[in-house]
């Protein structure tokens, strides 16, 4: 009842005229002229402000490629990416001002081992020239948000994988970007930590009101987190199907035992098996 049966009004909101991210005809080719690899077919996608979108697909489906292009780490071969109506790539050049609307979290926390946790979180602000006092105040606020207060002076290696990933999320949020891009953020964590991090992510998303895109190959993670799931298929990577997920928020882990949830998981699993 919650899945794919959203009221038309909500659907119209998603397709509202001013999406925060708009991909128009975005494609990506890798490699040399002799043996080019088509990583992503020309893709159109609108992402609404405040949406939690999940890109789901098997490996080689172009989901990470798509995220890295939106994140400004990879230039699209063709097409346009607009963030809040502004072009991200102009003539193969990243637009710095537009990039600052984006925060990225990777599969590895990628904290700098030579900086303490608070310095890691405050690093983006340091790069922006924010005075020391302000950036530490912000870092401490964020540490409270991601619940790692008390570890300010620790080295990253002294924290567990889950806590490092929390710090990485805090770092990405430090300069208050509108959009958080997460590339398999919990893929390196054990199943229990992963569940609790998914709950935490939902809470952080609700508290901050960010637009979040999560790349994953976990079906249950996708179904648990998403407002909308974009399922991609490989060779070449392209959008296969889109699913609206309407389970009420905040979702607890128990949502996974709902018949509707299991039906959605089943649908996704079958579709993934067909396209892989």
């Amino acid at each position: 009842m919650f899945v794919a049966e959203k009221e038309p009004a909500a659907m119209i909101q998603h397709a509202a005229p001013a999406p925060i991210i708009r991909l128009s005809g975005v494609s990506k080719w890798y490699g040399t002229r002799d043996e080019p690899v088509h990583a992503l077919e020309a893709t159109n996608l609108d992402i609404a402000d405040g949406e939690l979108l999940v890109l789901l697909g098997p490996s080689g489906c172009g989901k990470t490629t798509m995220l890295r292009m939106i994140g400004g780490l990879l230039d699209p071969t063709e097409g346009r990416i607009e963030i809040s109506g502004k072009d991200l790539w102009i003539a193969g050049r990243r637009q710095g001002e537009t990039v600052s609307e984006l925060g990225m979290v990777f599969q590895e926390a990628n904290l700098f081992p030579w900086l303490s946790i608070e310095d890691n979180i405050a690093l983006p602000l340091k790069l922006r020239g924010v005075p020391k006092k302000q950036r530490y105040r912000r870092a401490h606020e964020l540490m409270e948000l991601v619940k790692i207060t008390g570890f300010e002076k620790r080295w990253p290696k002294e924290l567990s994988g889950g806590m490092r990933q929390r710090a990485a999320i805090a770092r990405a949020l430090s300069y208050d970007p509108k959009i958080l891009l997460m590339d398999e953020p919990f893929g390196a964590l054990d199943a229990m930590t992963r569940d609790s991090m998914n709950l935490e992510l939902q809470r952080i998303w609700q508290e901050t009101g960010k637009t979040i895109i999560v790349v994953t190959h976990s079906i249950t993670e996708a179904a648990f987190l998403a407002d909308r799931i974009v399922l991609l298929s490989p060779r070449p990577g392209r959008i296969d199907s889109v699913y609206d997920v309407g389970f009420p928020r905040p979702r607890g882990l128990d949502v996974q035992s709902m018949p509707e949830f299991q039906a959605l998981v089943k649908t996704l699993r079958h579709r993934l098996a067909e396209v892989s």
Partner: protein
Amino acid sequence: MTDAVVAPTERAGSGTSYLPWITTPLLVVACLAIWHFYTKFSGISPFVLPSPSAVWHVWMGMLASPRAWSHTLTTVYSTLLGFFFGLVVGVTLGLILGRIRWLELTLNPFIVATQVVPKVALIPLFVVWFGFGMTSKVLVAAVLSFFPILTNTVLGVKSVEAGHRDVMTSLNASRFQAFAQLDFRNALPYIITGMEVGIVLAIIGTIVGEYLGGSAGLGYMLVSEMNAYQTDGLFAVIIHMTILGFVFYFATGLLRRFVIPWHQSAEV
């Protein structure tokens, strides 16, 4: 909540870290004892092998003489100055070559060439060019210490993790910011390793330089003792040099604790 703080990983066998503090003095005493009894009972000439006590007396005499200290200072000064130049040039060039691939490929044959030349063979040339004074020794020390520092710095810059680079790119860091906050910081442990090798080579370079064409320094002292057939004096100078080498090596190693306290190598 499964999240928990993990203790800093203890090195395997860290419980035996006190071992060298016992074994080292014991082995030194054992060697001295063998040396002592060998010179006492074998009837070997003191011109070939003086007894440890004779060497000790000469060394104590050296430590009390201003002349020996002035030679020591000369050697220390040349070594440190040469090492400093080697460090500055090695790190600067290493940071540049680590980032600019085509320049590295272009310059690499020449850098290797300067290294496969037996540098000790260059010393007479340096003496011809720069005289018997300190300049030629400083240069030898610089040339010798430069290479390990350079190669380690290049390695340090190249070993920056792709994920860390992605972070800097996604944070829209300028080239200079990425360089200062990432490349340089990442290269520091490697630079210190290069420094540890470099400082020892710098001492060797200086001493050989003084030995072959000098009028001051420990290398020069060594030659004078040899020319005077003072074998015990020769031993004393060698011990003096060894201790100097230790001091430099450990001082460099100590940098780890202060410059890169986050690195595993600082935990020893």
